[in-house]
């Protein structure tokens, strides 16, 4: 498909090549953010069988922490002034991710753990309640005006071939790759194996001495950390030039088609789904607009991921990488 599009683009001359290159780079950057969000959602779902509706709120909270640490109290930058400002900002972002992970840990302990054994629907409702609480508190913390994150890349761009790419977009993709590698290593660790065991068969894992509760907490902590990372990078130029605001939390819902496309319980699927959604949205925005496609109506780019999702579900009802569930009836 990509090759076809490239040929199509080249047939239209330099302008078309530029358009295709920019749509692709933008789609990849957007897909990276969706992948980060989807990874967190899938991780929590895999371990606890719960779709976390508070994920967007955690993303916004993490972005707020980063903005506060980097631009208000300059932590930990004020203690490491000998380091370059870029490193100082990265440290602030890291601390923000860690704080959000701790919030995730606490939420799991206070709100999710007591619900073990209760119907899953009830637990999902709890995550909706958590979303409202966290969003309200975060909105209050942010205040009425958006908060810039003070990142070192600002509005800087680089030209890579015909594509004009923001430095923050490159950073987003790099961070997503780092997160992926980190998760891959984690799943090879003792706790990672334990998490896989709990996800595979909770009772059997517990019989082997694995603490399911601890694994749930760990999944929520990592999921919240990933949400915060996505929140931070979705609040940077050019995605949101003025930083984290009271609309940031809603961005996470755009990643929902990604986890369905990839398969609800697949880490690989989350990443692939994220990039598919990002690219689909970007290509639809670039090519399915203008007078020729006016019959598609306004905002068709936002519908495109759901169309892709429907097509995927028709062919593979459990998503591209999801586990097929067989029930005896």
């Amino acid at each position, binding site marked *: 498909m990509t090759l076809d599009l490239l040929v199509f683009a080249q047939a239209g001359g330099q302008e078309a090549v530029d358009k295709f290159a920019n749509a692709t780079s933008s789609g990849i950057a957007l897909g990276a953010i969706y992948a980060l969000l989807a990874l967190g959602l899938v991780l929590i779902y895999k371990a606890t069988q719960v779709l976390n509706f508070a994920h967007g709120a955690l993303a916004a909270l993490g972005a707020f922490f980063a903005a506060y640490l980097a631009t208000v109290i300059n932590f930990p930058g004020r203690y490491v002034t000998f380091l370059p400002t870029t490193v100082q900002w990265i440290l602030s972002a890291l601390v923000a991710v860690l704080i959000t992970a701790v919030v995730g840990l606490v939420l799991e302990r206070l709100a999710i753990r007591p619900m073990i054994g209760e119907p899953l629907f009830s637990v999902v409702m709890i995550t909706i309640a958590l979303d409202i609480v966290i969003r309200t508190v975060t909105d209050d913390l942010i205040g009425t005006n958006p908060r810039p994150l003070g990142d070192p890349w600002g509005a800087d761009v680089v030209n890579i071939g015909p594509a004009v790419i923001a430095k923050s977009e490159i950073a987003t993709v790099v961070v997503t790759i780092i997160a992926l590698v980190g998760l891959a290593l984690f799943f090879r660790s003792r706790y990672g194996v334990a998490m896989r065991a709990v996800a595979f068969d909770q009772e059997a894992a517990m019989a082997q001495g694995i603490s399911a509760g601890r694994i749930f907490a760990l999944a929520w902590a990592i999921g919240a950390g990933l949400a915060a990372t996505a929140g931070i990078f979705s609040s940077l130029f050019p995605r949101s030039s*003025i930083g984290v605001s009271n609309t940031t939390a809603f961005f996470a819902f755009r990643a929902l088609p990604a986890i369905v496309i990839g398969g609800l319980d697949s880490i690989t699927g989350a990443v692939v789904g994220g990039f598919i959604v990002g690219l689909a949205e970007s290509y639809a925005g670039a090519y399915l607009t203008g007078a020729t496609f006016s019959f598609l109506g306004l905002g068709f780019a936002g519908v495109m991921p759901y169309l892709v999702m429907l097509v995927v579900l028709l062919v593979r009802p459990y998503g591209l990488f999801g586990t097929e569930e067989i029930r005896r009836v």
Partner: protein
Amino acid sequence: MKKLRIFVLVLALALVAAACSSDGDDTTTTTAGGDATETTVATETTAATETTVATETTAATETTVAPADLKTDFGVDVEAGTITVGQTADLTGPFAPLVAPILAGQQMYWAWVNGNGGIGGMEVLMETRDTNYQVEQHIAAYDEIRDLVVAISHTTGSPQTLAISDALEEDSMIAVPATWYSGWTDTNIAPTVLHTGNPYCLEAMNGLDWMVSVEAEEGNDAPTLAIASIPGDFGFDPMAGATMWAEINGIEIVYDGSGKIIPGQDQKPIADAIVASGADLVYVTTTPTTFSEVYGAALQQGFEAKWSGSGPTYNPAFLVSPIADAIQRDWYGTFYMQPWGGDSAGMALTMQLVEASGADIPANDYVGLGVVEAMIVHAALEAAYASGDMTRAGVLAALRTLDNVDFQGMAPAENYTGSTADQIQRSITLWRPSVANLEAGGSGSEIVESDFVGPTAESFDFQEACFQF
């Protein structure tokens, strides 16, 4: 099970606490003018009192009507000595950054009025509801307060205000909208909703008249135009103005994205289309957040043009963001009144009120707008009091006798009598974004010209709303 019950209880408490934690609570009744600070305001601004309030208001204050003889229905309690005005305000939605300072301005103004004897000795209270910029919430908010108030001194949003306009008319309730839809001036649409300032479509004409003159000075006599907006009357009214401006002036519209900016979606396609059009002038109307996304994505591609848009599209927060340098270069701002720190008696009063309030209110152009909104209602209430009829119908009737509500230079005077053409406001303030101004304690808006009327806006035959539903 016991654990579960305790947990549910804790969660419920947390929800209640969260709901109550907002700075701008959903429900607030504010008594303005009762405390020591407010008394100080009155004392310190005695001189301003005599020069600032509209002529009609001053005259009305001197008219003595025994409160017992007043005709009243809703929102005026003669025995308690209170007059309640309502606000259906977006305190938590996309325009909250602009609405919060508006309400702060209103609060300070009513405190000052109360400190100066109120209206016929009665003090003015504020009854505020949060609407989150949601139409349904706005309707519910109005339903909640409609029997508690005599007038609505603030209602956020065009579609939201339009949604309650029938109810407002049914109640004979005057309402000052924080929206500049040209239909508010059209006497056939929402007759109790009061226009204030240059409507969106004429604002677009004024802004484009200004930008095209700058282009001409720079040697470009045939600039091209790209336009884009969110759907709805907030977007379509200015787009109608920009389109008419282009037709009148023979300017080519190289990209028309009217209604194509959908908040919450990826805005890069809009930016791509604007960039591809190669327009010299861009006119955009949307929320500040989505504007930053469109502008940021265009900027990423190295696009340079003169940008402008309806007032609420811009947010001073742009000046402390990564796009600060570019926005200083590109944005040609228009506003319905003088920005913060403007040179007028009205703005001097606003500055005094801010200083005397002791509140930590950042420099923001919308504080003055709150004062202007309150001044309109104040003038209507004073006129109604003078007539002895403070029913809602009485306030409406009194308002319709005011042909020169004067804001002492802070905003162009308004006429609420006569035909649509008589009432249209053509004047606007031009300004440029300035980090230096912001760093010097201003709002970041450097005034270029007050009371500007461009040639297209001046000659435009305004007989009805530019955009009809």
